[in-house]
């Protein structure tokens, strides 16, 4: 009996020591970061970015997708046996992240849902805000200093194919949420964030150089966001809701295959330079990719011409986003640009150095700058 008691006490002491060690470790890790965090709140993925004192960046990504199940014996069993990440809300259970996609493909039925749709909160899903909050909290973590600046990405308010829709409410909810975690948060346009990360410049014929100037496009899952930027200031911002997810749905309708299968082909097999003509899904994806790229460049041409603007030098195009990561994507863009008349000269067209994390990195740079300004005051 006495031995049991001693063992128990020893065990408790060891556990306590372990906990303290973990805590110290955590504090040490936190100290390595410079305050100022960036969050890319995308329809398809949520990414966070922090800079370390050694100058490198730490990025985190989470697939913003869910598989909804009724809470019953079957789901209880599944949750108990598998190591799925889940959220329970009311009488429903949601498998979270990449697990959702693998589960749907394993079961062979059901559909993937997202807490966000077309770049904004998903109005079809009543609990979307609760779920998104939970996911964001787990990706972002806690502030590392009092009033730590946080920059989060938002789409442009000008949604060209949905007049009357704007991002105001979406932006307010996110700002309120991040502030409730202890951050001082501010929104930043998604395409502008990509441009900050890539920092293109416009060179004039007289040798003068305009830094942070160019055309930035973020091809995401729910939206395509565009910004024409001059010396770090956005001149034109617009977005379109017909993006990666829409391509999946269009190809699904055309081929009769579920979207979960289309996503797998898109991510694992698709090469836009070498479309397998015997694969109907790849052929469909190729057609809709070209349509999307062409539509965006026609729109920028229209928006740019509205105010009779003129750029003296050639404008570099910097592209990012998960949808732009398909091999051969940049060649498609170059092909479209060759055959379209644009109101400005195009310089280099390039994929961002880190297309998947470029928006979160750009947000982080703006967050770091906010922190530096905060300290100067």
């Amino acid at each position: 009996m006495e031995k049991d008691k001693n063992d128990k006490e020893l065990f408790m002491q060891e556990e306590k020591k372990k906990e303290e060690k973990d805590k110290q470790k955590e504090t040490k890790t936190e100290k390595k970061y410079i305050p100022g965090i960036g969050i890319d709140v995308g329809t398809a993925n949520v990414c966070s970015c922090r800079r370390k004192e050694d100058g490198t960046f730490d990025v985190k990504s989470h697939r913003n997708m869910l598989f909804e199940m009724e809470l019953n014996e079957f789901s209880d069993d599944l949750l108990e046996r598998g190591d799925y990440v889940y959220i329970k809300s009311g009488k429903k259970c949601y498998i979270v992240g990449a697990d959702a996609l693998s589960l749907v493909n394993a079961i062979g039925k059901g559909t993937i849902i997202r807490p966000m749709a077309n770049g904004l909160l998903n109005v079809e899903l009543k609990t979307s805000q609760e779920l998104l909050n939970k996911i964001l909290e787990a990706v972002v973590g806690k502030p590392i200093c009092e009033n730590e600046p946080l920059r989060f990405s938002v789409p442009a308010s000008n949604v060209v194919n949905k007049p009357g829709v704007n991002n105001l409410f979406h932006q307010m909810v996110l700002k309120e949420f991040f502030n409730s975690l202890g951050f001082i948060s501010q929104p930043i346009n998604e395409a502008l964030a990509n441009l900050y990360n890539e920092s293109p410049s416009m060179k004039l014929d007289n040798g003068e150089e305009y830094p942070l100037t160019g055309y930035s496009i973020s091809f995401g899952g729910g939206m395509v966001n565009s910004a024409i930027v001059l010396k770090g200031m956005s001149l034109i911002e617009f977005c379109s809701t017909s993006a990666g997810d829409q391509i999946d749905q269009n190809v699904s309708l055309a081929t009769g295959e579920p979207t979960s299968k289309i996503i797998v082909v898109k991510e694992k097999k698709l090469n836009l330079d070498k479309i397998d003509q015997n694969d109907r899904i790849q052929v469909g994806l190729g057609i809709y990719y070209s349509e999307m790229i062409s539509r965006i460049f026609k729109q920028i041409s229209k928006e740019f011409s509205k105010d009779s603007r003129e750029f003296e030098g050639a404008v570099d195009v910097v592209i990012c986003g998960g949808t732009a990561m398909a091999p051969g994507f940049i060649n498609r863009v170059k092909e479209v640009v060759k055959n379209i008349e644009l109101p400005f000269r195009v310089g280099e067209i390039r994929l961002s150095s880190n297309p998947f994390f470029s928006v979160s990195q750009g947000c982080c740079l703006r967050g770091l700058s906010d922190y530096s300004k905060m300290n100067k005051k």
Partner: protein
Amino acid sequence: MSIIHNGKQIEVNIGGISQSKLERILSEHGKLILDGMDKKIGDIPKQTVVYDKNGRETSQETISEESLNSIAKEMVKDRHNTESNFDSLGKRQKVKMDKEKVKKTLDLLNDL
């Protein structure tokens, strides 16, 4: 003027309008607002059509930024209604960037 729907106060600007016309407005346009409140998210209209005493249509702001902000505050509380088996999410990766380029960009951003 303000109306109460599902315990939420909604501000509606309807200067000098009769009860019957108020009902007409709510049945035709207010529904959009109420639906938005019910869903707690979505395309909440910032404008609605209201009628003056002569039955003419006039357009006025109905939901102010402050009202939207108070709804946003309410929504933030909702995360406590859920239960999950995780504290942290996301796959971590280390990214190296050109230090000189980052410094140049930060200098430019500090001047904005």
